[in-house]
């Protein structure tokens, strides 16, 4: 009576096929990552040494280390974050917690989505026009970081707004009914419950900021400086641009060196992400439940 009918069997077959397809797609996602990281480790790993990390390039980039680029990338990311996170989070707070639903707000939302879709080379040219020339920052860490900040701002805003909106409305109502102002509600309830989502947005942005080449090419990155940046008005080397340069422009650079630079670039991104994740875990730990 309960034996499988042909229809049952066909349903099961279809479902197994579907599962197999989905599984293959998932694996297909992971394989490139493994290949990339594997190749980098195998071919670039031997290039790594303390000397590689802590000295400047020598002999037309064909020897020596990457210290100026490493330090430059950290400068760029930190300054870009200092600019984009406060602006982005404040904008998202306004849009999510204060803004009335009117034409202006909808226009702003549309602008943010469009800003996210602008190609990075266009951001680069904007950065040249705005920060390098108009504000007279020159080609500098400041100009490059601000360009990166503008590029990543939409990501911060959208991610922040989404995590703010994930906080149940009932929490806000509870606060308002106890006579809390909007700001008190945000500070005491909304932000503590959305901070980990906000940091996720920031983490995504760190990786992009460290990896992008186009926005910094014309605004502050330079192929070679032997010294480390001392202020935000210096030009700097950067990992991503350095990689681009030795891979396509410089001659006689050993393959090992190129892969080594790529490996370190990925490692810094992972390290910065790890710091952000650690911070997020710490913030979660502060909650008393």
């Amino acid at each position, binding site marked *: 009576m309960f034996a499988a009918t042909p229809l049952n069997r066909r349903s099961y077959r279809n479902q197994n096929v579907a599962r197999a397809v989905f599984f293959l797609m998932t694996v297909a996602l992971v394989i490139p990552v493994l290949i990339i990281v594997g190749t980098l480790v195998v071919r670039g790993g031997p290039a790594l040494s303390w000397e590689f990390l802590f000295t400047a390039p020598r002999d037309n980039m064909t020897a020596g280390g990457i210290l100026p680029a490493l330090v430059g990338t950290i400068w760029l990311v930190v300054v870009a974050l200092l600019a984009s996170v406060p602006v982005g989070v404040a904008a998202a707070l306004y849009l999510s917690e204060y803004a*009335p*639903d009117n034409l202006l707000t909808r226009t702003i939302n549309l602008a943010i989505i469009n800003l996210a879709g602008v190609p990075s080379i266009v951001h680069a040219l904007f950065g040249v026009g705005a920060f390098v020339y108009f504000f007279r920052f020159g080609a500098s860490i400041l100009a490059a970081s601000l360009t990166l900040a503008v590029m990543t701002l939409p990501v911060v805003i959208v991610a922040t707004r989404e995590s703010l909106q994930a906080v*149940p409305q*009932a*929490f806000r*109502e*509870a*606060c*308002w*009914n*106890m*006579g*809390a*102002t909007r700001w*008190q509600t945000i500070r*005491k*309830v909304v932000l503590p*419950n959305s901070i980990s989502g906000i940091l996720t947005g920031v983490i995504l942005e760190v990786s992009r900021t460290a990896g992008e080449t186009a926005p910094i090419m014309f605004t502050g990155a330079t192929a070679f400086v032997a010294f480390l940046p001392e202020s935000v008005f210096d030009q700097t080397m950067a990992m991503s641009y350095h990689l681009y340069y030795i891979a396509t422009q410089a001659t006689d650079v050993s393959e090992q060196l190129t892969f080594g630079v790529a490996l370190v670039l990925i490692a810094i991104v992972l390290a910065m992400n790890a710091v952000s994740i650690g911070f997020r875990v710490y913030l979660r730990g502060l*909650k*008393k*439940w």
Partner: protein
Amino acid sequence: MDNGQRGDYAIETRGLNLWYGDFQALIDVDLEVKRGIITSMIGPSGCGKTTLLRTCNRIIERLGYVRTTGSVYVLGHDIFGDDVELVQVRKQVGMVFQRPNPLPISIRDNVLFGFRLHEARTRKVSVAEENEVLESSLRQVLLWDTVKDRLDKPATGLSLEEQQKLCIARLLPVKPEVLLMDEPCSALDPAGTEAVEEMIWQLRGDYTILIVTHNMAQARRASDECVFMLLGRIIEHGRTEELFLAPENAKTADYIEGRYG
């Protein structure tokens, strides 16, 4: 006449009309809620009772498309007056919702949330005083004995009934005069409903309570006065037993006998 003391009513509305966009949800509502008693509001879905309740602390305005005319006096003061600060209104008029909405923090922090917001900002509050406020608030809602050993546990771990009591408890430290309750028992099982009703009865006298309910039996057993609303108007308002035993209006009689609703 805006700030003059008016009568002995906790809440008084005069010619109150309210529109959601083009739809008029309240029509010429004149309501007087006496101090210190429990007044229930009954009526079929969409009759405007929740709207009226939410107008009494102006939380309704958060929906941008709401327009009102007429006046609402709370404790004799026009809450639509020019010099009215919403935060002050909401301190005096606490609200409880259908679904309990404890904040995702500890029981202690929930109860002391409003207290810290208002009291602890103007003066130094000792831990002993906080504990006292905490205990007396939880005792008033008959929750102290249940939760006294887990005050620092998350409030979201409580049962729905306990959460609803907690939501009422956290209104008390800022010393409101009026408690608005929007179907406070509709998410609860019968035992929870009974417990919350018992607690509401306990609060009677110290607070003016205005409670919206779908449950006519609840209105009947747990209120002093009862208001029957229909299609945005108040049809009848009187002592609960009289309204249920000898309604003056035929529509009221039809409703409480279950002919519509």
